[in-house]
């Protein structure tokens, strides 16, 4: 172990040259690339975060859409139930009205027929009785209007009572 001052100097010079060369040709490039890689990684991480957010938003959207669809389906079902029951009611009503109408008509027809029959019977009876009476009273009773009026009145009373 001897101190040789030139060795000290040489080592300093060698180290200095090495430092300058490395700094100029190797490290600056390396640092640049490392910085770029760092940026790339950051960018990719950002992108991943963004994508995740988007996915979450999309899922949320889908959920809402599903919910909405479900609600709509529920609504449609309810609506159709209401409609069908309404229709049934209406049909029922219609049928009832029809039946009523038919019944009333029948009743009216029956009444008409009865009236007609009664009228026909009455006039038949009237003429028949007049004929009988005229046969009976042919001689003494002239077929004047006074007597026929009396008969009619009598017959009306009879018909009204029947």
């Amino acid at each position: 172990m001897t101190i040789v001052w030139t060795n000290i100097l040489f080592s300093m010079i060698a180290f200095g040259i090495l430092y300058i060369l490395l700094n100029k040709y190797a490290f600056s490039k390396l640092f640049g690339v490392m910085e770029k890689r760092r940026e790339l990684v950051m960018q990719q991480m950002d992108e991943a975060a963004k994508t995740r957010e988007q996915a979450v938003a999309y899922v949320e959207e889908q959920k809402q859409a599903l919910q909405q669809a479900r609600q709509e389906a529920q609504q449609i079902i309810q609506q159709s139930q209401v409609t069908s029951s309404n229709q049934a009611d209406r049909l029922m009503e219609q049928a009832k009205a029809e039946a009523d109408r038919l019944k009333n008509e029948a009743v009216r027809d029956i009444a008409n027929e009865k009236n007609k029959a009664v009228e026909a019977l009455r006039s038949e009876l009237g003429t028949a009785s007049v004929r009988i009476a005229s046969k009976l009273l042919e001689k003494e009773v002239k077929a004047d209007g006074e007597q026929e009026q009396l008969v009619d009145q009598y017959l009306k009373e009879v018909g009204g009572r029947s």
Partner: protein
Amino acid sequence: MHEMPLIYVGGIPIDLSAVLMLVVSCVIVFVLAMLAVRNLSVENPGKLQNFMEWVVEFVQGIISSAMDLKKGRPYISLGLTLILFIFVSNLLGLPFSVITEAEGPVTIFGHVIEATKHLVHGEHAEILWWKSPTADINITAGLAIIVFLLMNFLGIKNNGKHYFKHFVEPFPIFLPLNIIENLAKPVALAIRLFANIFAGEVLITVILKLGFVGIPFLGVWQGFSIFVGALQAYIFTILTMVYIAQYTIHEEEAH
């Protein structure tokens, strides 16, 4: 003991072994770095690039443990150069060493190697050519002086009057102590690195003298020496960063 191949060129002493090993270390580190940055890629880094980036991150970790990484960013290159250079230097002496035996005066490039100059007949000198450059105190001293100059220069430049104030704190009477502390730092750096690596190489030489019995010990010790070499490179770098941080960063709460 092994002698260094020292020659005088016009009165200036030149240790050929140190020059050789410095050049070899620098070339290896430079080639390694250039290979690592040859095919730089952002998306798909190669193995060597990955390794280099790992080293960079390691050095960043070292610096951020000593100071704020924002302030320490300019020192990343310094830390990288230090750690790579010292680590490669530490390992160079491990696989083999080159020693020549000289029986008489040996001349190289027309100059006589000092250790062989006064050899008389029957004597011989063993000249060590290939070794770890960091097993030479002169070279570790050179590195330590760089650190010393750098930390004081950066302290004055970045910290101004606080740098000088540090010397008279907590009391003016501490001035000599603080100066000694300042001077002791590079000395400790140089001697720690030198002693570790030198001792490693000495022990390898000793184990080699055991012959075949020493082979397992040699394997174990060489493995351990790799660990020591990495550890010393790490220590040198982290201490450099700690010293720079100590002198350049003025902490308000300390006053």
